[in-house]
């Protein structure tokens, strides 16, 4: 019966004459459809440059970035740059300044929310797709081993001389061939002190206080950071892969899981701002600037006293970059002292560039949450790449499936 209907329908279609009004109506409809469909989001690449060009254009030419360009500007730089980075991790005004100074027309900013996601993309075969990537330091050896990143040509980055000595020759890159330090920071506890009256200055207290604020706790979506809390609360190394220690950490995590609001690496600061979350296991990005606003002046960030992670993010150049000259030019540009100072002040993560400190607001230089004083720094632990340990992965999966 359906065939007959189809038959009749086709016959009718063949015999009807299309009136002019009908034709105009139909084409108008399809045109508006095409416009609406095109108004959907483009890939992140087309959306982000629009966002990054929003800030004032005047800053590009007149602002702090107009410091005399180093000799690298004389090199033939390509017209495009593809970056793969954490979200909101480069000052949009610096991007604008870079584009203007080097004549780069397209600056694509693709994002990832965790190192694991970034590794997964490279493992899935992403060679030749990006010019710059920003892995956290402990992932660099694995990336080198699998051929994901290439050596940096230091002759094109004279500004690398400003990198301070403590960040050079470390275990992840003993000869400093593959990465340029970007910034460093800590993982700590964010609190809305006007709601949370108890003292939450250690991880132990964090776990104790959590059930009282069930459903209002936000945690970054990163296994390497989350394991820090239970392991340090129990006094173990945060890189532990010992089954007994991990077993005890698992218990603490399972006790925390039902009280967690969300695992969020991008928007945890928004949740803290709107009081959707009053307690958090977070980084400092987006949190510290809340302290300056009157409505959220009660926000505090604590570096836990029983120890925590200090992490270093680095710049690296993926293998077979489509625009290697532009990549090197950007790395040199970003370590220009005034440019780097602007980065630090916008992102609120500590810089590794000694010259840049001269241009940073002294209030920020003295902020212990950003520029951690040496005595506290000595007690912090760096990370090893234990992301592939099967027991850790299993506990992480269990934790994630039990939140909420």
């Amino acid at each position: 019966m359906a065939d007959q209907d189809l038959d009749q329908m086709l016959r009718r279609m063949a015999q009807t004459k299309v009136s002019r009004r009908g034709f105009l109506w139909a084409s108008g409809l399809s045109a508006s459809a095409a416009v609406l469909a095109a108004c959907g989001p483009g890939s992140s690449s087309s959306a982000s440059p629009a966002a990054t060009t929003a800030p004032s254009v005047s800053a590009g030419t007149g602002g702090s970035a107009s410091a005399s360009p180093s000799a690298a500007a004389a090199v033939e730089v390509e017209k495009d740059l593809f970056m793969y980075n954490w979200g909101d991790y480069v000052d949009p005004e610096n991007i604008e300044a870079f584009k203007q100074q080097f004549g780069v027309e397209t600056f694509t900013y693709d994002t990832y929310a965790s190192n694991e996601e970034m590794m997964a993309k490279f493992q899935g075969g992403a060679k030749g797709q990006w010019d710059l990537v920003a892995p956290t330091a402990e992932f660099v050896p694995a990336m080198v081993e699998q051929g994901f990143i290439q050596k940096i040509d230091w002759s094109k980055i004279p500004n690398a001389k400003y990198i301070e000595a403590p960040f050079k020759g470390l275990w992840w890159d003993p000869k400093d061939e593959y990465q340029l330090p970007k910034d460093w920071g800590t993982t700590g506890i964010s609190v809305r002190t006007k709601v949370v009256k108890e003292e939450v200055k250690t991880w132990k207290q964090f776990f104790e206080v959590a059930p009282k604020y069930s459903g209002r706790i936000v945690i970054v979506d990163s296994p390497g950071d989350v394991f820090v809390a239970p392991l340090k609360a129990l006094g173990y190394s945060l890189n532990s892969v010992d089954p007994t220690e991990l077993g005890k950490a698992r218990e603490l995590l399972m006790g925390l899981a039902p009280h967690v609001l969300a695992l969020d690496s991008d928007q945890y600061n928004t949740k803290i701002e709107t009081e959707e979350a009053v307690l958090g296991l977070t980084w400092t990005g987006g949190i510290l600037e809340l302290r300056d606003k009157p409505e959220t002046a009660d926000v505090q960030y604590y570096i836990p006293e029983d120890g925590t992670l200090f992490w270093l993010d680095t710049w690296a150049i993926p293998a077979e970059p489509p625009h290697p000259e532009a990549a090197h030019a950007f790395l040199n540009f970003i370590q220009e002292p005034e440019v780097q100072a602007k980065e630090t002040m916008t992102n609120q993560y500590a810089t590794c560039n000694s010259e840049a400190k001269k241009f940073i607001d002294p209030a920020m230089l003295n902020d212990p949450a950003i520029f951690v004083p040496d005595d506290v720094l000595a007690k912090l632990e760096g990370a090893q790449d234990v992301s592939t340990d099967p027991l850790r992965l299993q506990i992480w999966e269990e934790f994630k499936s039990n939140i909420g």
Partner: protein
Amino acid sequence: MASLTEAAPAPAGADRPRRSFRSGALTALLLAPASLWYLLLLVAPLGIIVLFSFGERGKNGGYAGGFTLDNYAGALERNGPFVTSLLMAFGGTILCLLLALPLAYFIATRGGSKKSLLIVLLVVPFWTSFLIRTYAWLTILGPEGIAGFIGDATGNPSFRILGTPFAILLGVVYGYLPLMIFPIYVTMERMDRTLMEASKDLGAGRWATFRQITLPITLPGLITGSILVFIPLMGEYVVPAILGYSRVFLIGNQLVLQFLEARDWPQGAAKAVVLILIMLVSIIFYIWFSNRGRKVREVSVL
């Protein structure tokens, strides 16, 4: 155009062998693009996934050869997400059904001259990106939207809609409703109205008419709509992640964790295969159940 009515088989005759060869070759040629598409984009990836599911995880993640059944053991052991996904897909499909049926019935029977306008109103939001619409719900349901309003009204400042199963169901039904409405609407529209009049003349009330005449006739549309909604819902990840804050752990979340975080491709592949099998079984069962006792299989045109 006249050739369309020649659905009858080729007449017996001397030139039958030649004709069937030509028509055979022509058929093959016509089928070639679709077959190639299916082979390359459906069969091959499926084969790769099945192959991976028997493998072992590489040192830094990914796939390294081997043949082991551990992945399937793991998938069946930690089967919580499968059950939750089934429940959510089920619930979402039923909700969509309950909402779509009256709406489609209204537009088909009482729409009158406004029918096309109503259909356009249904279709146009569907063209906007699904992701954007889901993000819009974030603002509507968030602490600055409805949740804040209700929270202030009831004096409970930490009232929250986002991150609850309710928010997930809302987002999911909102997104998939058009998929359910259109097949039902199409079958209802083509239904012979005189049957309803006849039933009324024979003394059946409105509800009895609906139950015994309208519903059975539109059953193919219901089946199509349910399948169109159920299958994507089983693998739904975006809405539970954005509106549900990933607090409800579904197969979608599970697979993302395996592939993007744990980078254990064989585990993820095994779970994907189990998911496909579950869906196959559910759909076959559903179709068999709905078509019991029906002699003529109507296929809805969509």
